[in-house]
């Protein structure tokens, strides 16, 4: 396992894309958080509640439910490249002759992808909190809500990147993985949600929409009043814990499929 980790770490640090994807995440987070904080700065904070405002700023709008979490999408590309590059450039055979233990190779990729994506998200969210501090000097940033924003956002991005990794390993094609990772959360889940809330057809099971994995995962760092959510979306989302568990289980299933295929298939 240490051999596989050494390989994977060396692979990441000798690749330009690692640096520009992390940098892009930080630039996006810093810029958008500042813009949102600046836009909010005229608003009376306590009307909306400081947690809502903080979540909105620190996650570039995602935590308030009005934007996709861009950092997660950027880091999903990072996760996709973890396997995508292996197949795109015929590296996989060189990889497996350097480290023949496939399970170790897979586990090392999962561990380091989660680590880098999670840490990047943590830095991005801290950057967002800093922007909130700059524009709202009096806003409290030591509450349990802040911990939830930091932890929830980091975990969400780490899992999101792992879904990307799993898709690239399953398809062995990074373009296909990128298309799915961009389209399913943004368009696919939206369409399913819209169909599910047709009252005549799916009466009583509207709340199943709360189990749509990417949407469920986002509840980890989203601060929306549940009644308000029902009004806006037509169903009651799960809470942060239930949503997080749903997304984690979904990610685990994807990884299990990807790992099984990786171990069994010809390289």
């Amino acid at each position, binding site marked *: 396992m240490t051999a596989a980790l050494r390989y994977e770490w060396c692979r990441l640090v000798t690749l330009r894309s690692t640096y520009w994807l992390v940098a892009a995440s930080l630039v996006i987070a810093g810029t958008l958080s500042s813009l949102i904080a600046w836009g909010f700065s005229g608003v009376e904070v306590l009307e909306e509640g400081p947690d809502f405002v903080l979540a909105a700023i620190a996650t570039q709008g995602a935590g308030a439910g009005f934007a996709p979490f861009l950092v997660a999408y950027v880091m999903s590309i990072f996760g996709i490249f973890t396997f995508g590059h292996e197949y795109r450039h015929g590296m996989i*055979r060189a990889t497996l002759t350097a480290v023949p233990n496939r399970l170790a190779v897979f586990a090392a990729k999962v561990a380091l992808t989660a680590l880098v994506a999670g840490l990047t998200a943590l830095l991005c969210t801290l950057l967002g909190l800093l922007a909130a501090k700059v524009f709202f000097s009096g806003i409290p940033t030591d509450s349990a809500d802040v911990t939830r924003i930091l932890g929830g956002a980091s975990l969400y991005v780490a899992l999101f990147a792992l879904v990307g990794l799993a898709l690239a390993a399953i398809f062995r094609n990074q373009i296909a993985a990128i298309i799915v990772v961009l389209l399913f959360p943004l368009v696919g889940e939206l369409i399913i949600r819209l169909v599910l809330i047709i009252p005549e057809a799916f009466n009583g099971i509207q709340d199943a929409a709360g189990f749509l994995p990417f949407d469920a995962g986002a509840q980890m760092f989203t601060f929306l009043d549940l009644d308000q959510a029902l009004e806006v979306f037509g169903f009651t989302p799960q809470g942060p814990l239930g949503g997080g568990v749903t997304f984690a289980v979904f990610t685990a299933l994807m990884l299990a499929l990807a790992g099984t295929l990786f171990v069994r298939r010809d390289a």
Partner: protein
Amino acid sequence: MGTIEATGLSKAYDGKLAVDGLSFRVDPGSVTGFLGPNGSGKSTTMRLMLGLDNGQGSTTFDGSPFRQLRDPMRHVGSLLEAKPFHPTRKARNHLRLLAAPNGISDARVDEVLEMVGLTSVAADKPRKFSLGMGQRLGIAAALLGDPHTLILDEPANGLDPQGIQWLRQLLKDLAGEGRSVFVSSHLLAEMALMADRLVVIGRGRLLASGPVDDFVKASRSNAIVLRTPDIELLGPVLGQRGAYLVGGADGAYVVTGMAREQIGDVAHEVGARLHELASREATLEEAFLEATGMSEEFIGHAGALSGKPGSYDGTRA
């Protein structure tokens, strides 16, 4: 050390066997050429040997399967395809990447870069490398762990004549140090110069394995060239005694099935004049084409010549 033992290797794609019960052995201290027509299963065999493809059978390196080797690149170095690297990862970093999990030092990375002549482009991205330079980087990766066994799939691909000569000397030297070198190539003339032993396959099956000399000697293309103005006297007698004659356009006859000395004796016996009586050795290419069942074209060509006026068609008795 470095004995490779392949036993019962088989691999099917969509129910069709690409490799069919292949067993062979490669001993240390030799360059063993791996020959077979395109699509005969050479690359699949090499991938099976390294546990990259799933199939039946087993391959051991000094008794252990590849997947169970600790620091595998220190035991077995391999080159499986052209340009197996990320186009923007610098050449030196590519080698450091492979070295990292195998406990190989950066000093060794620089050493192999020097060996393959890539020191000056070590900090360059291989995106713009020529096929030959890419091949040298692949060979550097194979040599990285100073392994006792090398498995190289078409390493001469893309190399210029100097490069091919360099590779030949390198592989011979490595074998001379007691390592096993298992190398496939479609350049038969090159293989004849480089290999001590051969493993020949066709349609995924073993056709021959052993020393190159034995393989070439077994070819039917080994023959005696005979030139005589008295073919009417000599021809029928040679035919009766088991020789097979094919006439050439320039008045020469190619005789198989009888030793040169015997032909001379028969000529003396029937009173035929001999203007030429010489042995003609088969080339590795002829032996290979014959062994792999691709010799029909060659036979057809020779047969056509024998139909010319004044020629004599002998038959086996």
